C-alpha cells in the first residue's frame, strides 16, 4: 500500500535521517520526502511529508508506533489516493442478479475497490441499469478488474458497457 505520513520534526540536525531509518526497517520503500523549512510551526517545528510503499497495514501500525515512541509528532496519515479510475455500466436484470457477489469478488481482488454504485430502474419485471465506479492502484489492476467484471457480468446475462479504449 502507498501511504502518506505528515509529521512535525524538531529543527535540529539529523532529525530527517532519524525518521527515514525506521521506514526502511519495516520494509517501506520511500517515494518522496517533502521538507518545508519555510512552513515552520509556531512551536518551531518543521512539517515533513513522507510518501512510501509499505507491505501491509500491520507493518504501518508498528512503524507509526515506533515514530510516536521516538517523540515524533504525526499530524496526518493517509493512504495515497488511487489514481486509476473508471466507470462501467451493467445492463439487464441487475437487481435480481448476483451483483453482491461481483462487488465482493472485486473488493477481495486487492488493489481495486468499488467506489460508487448507482441504480436506475424502469419498472417491475423490466431490465434495469447499474453504474459502477472502480478505483485501482494501477491501470494494470484496473484492466484486470474490468476483465473480471465483464466475465462475471456475461455469466449473469448482463451487458457491460465500458469506457471506450479501456
Amino acid at each position, binding site marked *: 500500500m502507498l501511504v502518506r505520513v505528515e509529521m512535525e520534526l524538531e529543527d535540529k540536525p539529523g532529525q530527517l535521517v532519524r525518521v527515514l531509518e525506521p521506514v526502511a526497517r519495516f520494509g517501506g520503500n520511500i517515494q518522496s520526502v517533502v521538507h518545508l523549512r519555510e512552513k515552520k510551526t509556531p512551536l518551531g517545528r518543521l512539517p515533513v511529508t513522507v510518501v512510501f510503499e509499505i507491505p501491509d497495514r500491520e507493518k504501518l501500525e508498528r512503524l507509526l508506533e515506533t515514530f510516536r515512541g521516538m517523540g515524533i509528532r504525526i499530524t496526518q496519515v493517509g493512504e495515497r489516493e488511487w489514481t486509476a479510475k473508471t466507470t462501467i*455500466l451493467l445492463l439487464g436484470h441487475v437487481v435480481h442478479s448476483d451483483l453482491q457477489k461481483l462487488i465482493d469478488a472485486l473488493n477481495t481482488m486487492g488493489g481495486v475497490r468499488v467506489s460508487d454504485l448507482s441504480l436506475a430502474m424502469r419498472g417491475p419485471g423490466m431490465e*434495469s*441499469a447499474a453504474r459502477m465506479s472502480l478505483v485501482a492502484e494501477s491501470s494494470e489492476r484496473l484492466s484486470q478488474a474490468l476483465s473480471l467484471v465483464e466475465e462475471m457480468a456475461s455469466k449473469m446475462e448482463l451487458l457491460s458497457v465500458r469506457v471506450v479504449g479501456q
Partner: protein
Amino acid sequence: MRVIFVGFGNLGRGLARALLQPNNPLQRQGTEVKVVAVADDRGGVVDEKGLELGKVLETAEREGTVASLGRPGLSAVEVIRETEAEVVLELTPTNIRTGEPGLTHIREAMKLKRHVVTSNKGPLVVAFRELSELARRQGVQFRYSATVGGAIPVLTLAKRLSLGDRILAIRGVLNGTTNYILTRMEREGLPQDIVLREAQELGIAEKDPTLDLEGVDTACKLVILANATLGLDATLQDVRVLGISRITPEALKLAKEAGYTIKLVGSADSKGLSVRPSLVPLDHPLAVSGTLNAVCFELEYGREVTITGFGAGPRETSSALLSDLVEVSQNI
C-alpha cells in the same frame, strides 16, 4: 471516360443526377463522362456512343427499371463483358454473407481490366484481400470510399496518416441510424422502440433496421477500414459484435450523470476487432450526435486525429462516388 452503371437504385440514380448537373466535379477538371451502359436486376441498356442519361434516369424513376429502354433480361455480367468502358460503377445492394451479386460483377470487371468504383460493402467484407490483389495484378484502380463514412474522406485520411506515422488503433462511430437513436433516447428519455419508429418515419432508419441495430453495418465498415488501413485480412467473422438493443434511457441517464454518453463504437486495436456500445466521455471527439459519424485514429506520434461528418444518405454517397471517379480519371 466511359462508365458502366451496374445497379441503378437510389444510389445509382443519385449519382446520375449529380453527373447531369452542369459544372459537376468531373466537368470542372475537364473529364467528359460518357455513360455507355446501365444495368439493373431486370435488364440493361447499352449505347457505345453514350446513353442519354436524363432519359435513362426518367425511365428508371417511372418504371423502377431501365429494361424497357434496352433489353429486358440482359444480365449485368453480360453488360460488363460486352461493353467497352474504362470504369465499372458497382452500386448493387449489399449482401454481407455472399457479397453477391457485387462480388461477381467486380471480379468480371477487373478481369477485363476495368477500373472499379463501388459503394457495395458486401464484396469487400467477404473478399477484401482477393479483390485488392486482383486489382493490383490486373493493374486497375479499385476505389470504395463510399462504403465507409460516406462523404467523409476516412480512407484518404488514413492513407495520409500512414505515410509518416503509424496507426495504432481505429475507433469509430460508423452508423448514423444507431447514433441518431441513441442521441434521441438520451435527449428525450424515450424508449428505443419509439425513437426507432420516429427514425423510420424520417427515413433515417430502414424498414428492417436489424443490421444497423445489431451492429452488423458498423462491423462491415470496421472490417473495410481495418483491412484498408492496417493491412489486415479480416472478414465479418473476425469481429465481436454487440448491438444497441439493450441500451435503455436509464442506461443513458446513468452514463450522463457520470460525464459520459453511450455510442456504438467499432474498434480495431491490439485486442482485435469489436463493435459494442461504449461509454464515451462527453468531451471526447467521438461524442458526436444525431446521424453524424466520427472516426478517431490513434497514432504512434501524432496522438489522435478525428474526422467527423455525415456518413450515409444518397447525397453523401454521391459525394464519395464522385471523388472516387475524379481520382480514377486523374490516374488513367
